[in-house]
């Protein structure tokens, strides 16, 4: 159920990106374009995470942001050849990753996996990456520097992992974490991953440096927690297309994101309760070592709850 392959793809694109940015053969416009795209991608992700609690986010805004993410993802998919392949713990048999694996022959921008994103922040003059892309502003330093890593980034990366591949992402997570302050739990990331679909916003920000230090397998789970967060923060299901199919993972059981008749007609958020309960149980199943027990009483009520929801919101 874990989408390791998907996670690997996500990392790939980060990695390819960093590689491109520091590649000296790149023209400034390419560098800035990639940087801009990455920045927009990060901003978009954060926008989906970050909205006022208890209020329904604007569907229009969510759809537009989601389309933006889809578009960037589509571009990345087309540039799949640019992304280097690195070994991962599992090789899912999805066609997407296959195509990625076959593609590198067409590499036009050899990636330099050894380059660290921190270098990007320190060695790339802001102007260099800003001026060519007229869309990046010179009046917003925080925005411009956001793709650069916080100083603590290197320390977080565990030796076995390829350093650059997830830093930009982890920094995005850090930023997200800052945006949604919560008590940082030291539980295994698996818990974060499996709990997140429950709709608990505090759980959704559990991606923490500790989790990142635990190495690739855990990272995979960490990545897996993302779709759940999308699901929650946007209160809509359509994002799962993005997250399930492409960016994050490909082989996860998508049935948990399917709409049941009751929820699909009852609006965006009302499905959260029944669906997330399902999610919780399904995703918890492989991790029997994790505390499943507390959720067991929940299970008893599921069908009943479903029925009640159906009666209440079916229209």
């Amino acid at each position, binding site marked *: 159920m874990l989408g390791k392959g998907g996670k690997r793809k996500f990392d790939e694109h980060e990695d390819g990106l960093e590689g491109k940015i520091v590649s000296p053969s790149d023209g400034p416009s390419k560098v800035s374009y990639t940087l801009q795209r990455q*920045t*927009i991608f990060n901003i978009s992700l954060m926008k989906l995470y970050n909205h006022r609690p208890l209020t329904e986010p604007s569907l229009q805004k969510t*759809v*537009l942001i989601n*389309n933006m993410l889809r578009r*960037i993802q589509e571009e990345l998919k087309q540039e799949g050849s640019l992304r280097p392949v690195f070994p991962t713990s599992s090789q899912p048999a999805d066609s997407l990753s296959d195509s990625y694996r076959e593609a590198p022959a067409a590499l036009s921008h050899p990636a330099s996996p050894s380059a660290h994103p921190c270098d990007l922040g320190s060695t790339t003059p802001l102007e260099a990456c800003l001026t060519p892309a007229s869309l990046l502003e010179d009046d917003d330093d925080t925005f411009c520097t956001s793709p650069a890593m916080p100083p603590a980034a290197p320390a977080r990366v565990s030796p076995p992992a390829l350093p650059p591949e997830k830093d930009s992402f982890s920094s995005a997570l850090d930023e997200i974490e800052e945006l949604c302050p919560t008590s940082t739990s030291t539980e295994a990331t698996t818990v974060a991953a499996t709990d997140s679909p429950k709709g608990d916003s505090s759980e959704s920000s559990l991606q923490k440096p500790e989790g990142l230090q635990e190495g690739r397998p855990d990272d995979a789970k960490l990545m897996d927690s993302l779709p759940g967060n999308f699901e929650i923060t946007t209160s809509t299901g*359509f994002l799962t297309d993005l997250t399930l199919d492409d960016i994050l993972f490909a082989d996860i059981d998508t049935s948990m994101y399917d709409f049941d008749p009751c929820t699909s007609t009852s609006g965006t958020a009302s499905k959260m309760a029944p669906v997330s309960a399902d999610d919780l149980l399904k995703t918890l199943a492989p991790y029997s070592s994790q505390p499943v027990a507390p959720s067991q009483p929940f299970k008893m009520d599921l069908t009943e709850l479903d029925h009640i929801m159906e009666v209440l919101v079916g229209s």
Partner: protein
Amino acid sequence: MPSHRMPSEADIISTVEFNHTGELLATGDKGGRVVIFQREPESKNAPHSQGEYDVYSTFQSHEPEFDYLKSLEIEEKINKIKWLPQQNAAHSLLSTNDKTIKLWKITERDKRPEGYNLKDEEGKLKDLSTVTSLQVPVLKPMDLMVEVSPRRVFANGHTYHINSISVNSDCETYMSADDLRINLWHLAITDRSFNIVDIKPANMEDLTEVITASEFHPHHCNLFVYSSSKGSLRLCDMRAAALCDKHSKLFEEPEDPSNRSFFSEIISSVSDVKFSHSGRYMLTRDYLTVKVWDLNMEARPIETYQVHDYLRSKLCSLYENDCIFDKFECAWNGSDSVIMTGAYNNFFRMFDRNTKRDVTLEASRESSKPRAVLKPRRVCVGGKRRRDDISVDSLDFTKKILHTAWHPAENIIAIAATNNLYIFQDKVNSEMH
């Protein structure tokens, strides 16, 4: 009418609407209140000046609610107000928040009956033994009282957020549009509405487009238009089918490849659509432009005006700070020859369709004294900066003019600038606030 309190979130004006004669002007705010202004009769002392608009009535239209099923707050913010054509002495308007539309009746009372035979002034029954003669009750003048009463509540019709309401020219029905559906209501029936557009995909994962605004044709009660977040307009004919999922006409402009960017789709999202008074044209606002469409030409707009093209290089920042999602409205003047729309920094723009001249004006308390003449403002982009020019970098993006309204016949405009309402009139270049 700038308020002199510290502006609070609830005071932010969220909609402005003249009635059909222009005698009344209604505003709604984020606090769920509706304030109605009435134009005073022309003053004898200053015959050159048209009557000013004074507060006529204020009432709480919507209250904050909580959706316990979804655990979500339903804001009281008034999204739209629409006046009904006046049928009798009373005025009626529709107001809506995200979910619920309400019909309000506004009546005046300036006389009260006196001298009943069986009741005293308080309405209590008199002791019949004291009634010795019969009298005819008379109406005595009293201080004008404006009474606002809720007449209908149209609830439970929308799953998503209502962005538009529009009263049909048949004066019997109206429609309400949310992100994915448009409903048709009869003004007298609250427990039933007909779904006339539904763009919700079977699977929400396939959702890439939402409805952003919608309006009935001013003369043909069977026609309406709705705009989308992808920049298109769909004209629908209710005679064609009960469910207008298939549009009659699709108005869409091909994307200009030279301006392609990550933000192309977001800035092409239509934030407002308005039929011209003649019914021949449609006016749309997207993030950077206003466009005039001819109902007879679907391929492209007949006119495109740049509202603040200097922001094109700032889109990334505007995306980051969410300004790019601001929903600017647009308005026609009474003769459809001038269009108006808002911008940032308390600026608003007017475009003369005949002379192709445009002007940037500012609505601010500092720069506008009563009856002062508005000075055109200019935003400078490059280095050549003239006196009084303002540079793009010093624009205040928190001061945005989203809501504007134009008097149906005269050159009087109402501008909502956050918590202030400015009313400007052209007649003798006089201005007031």
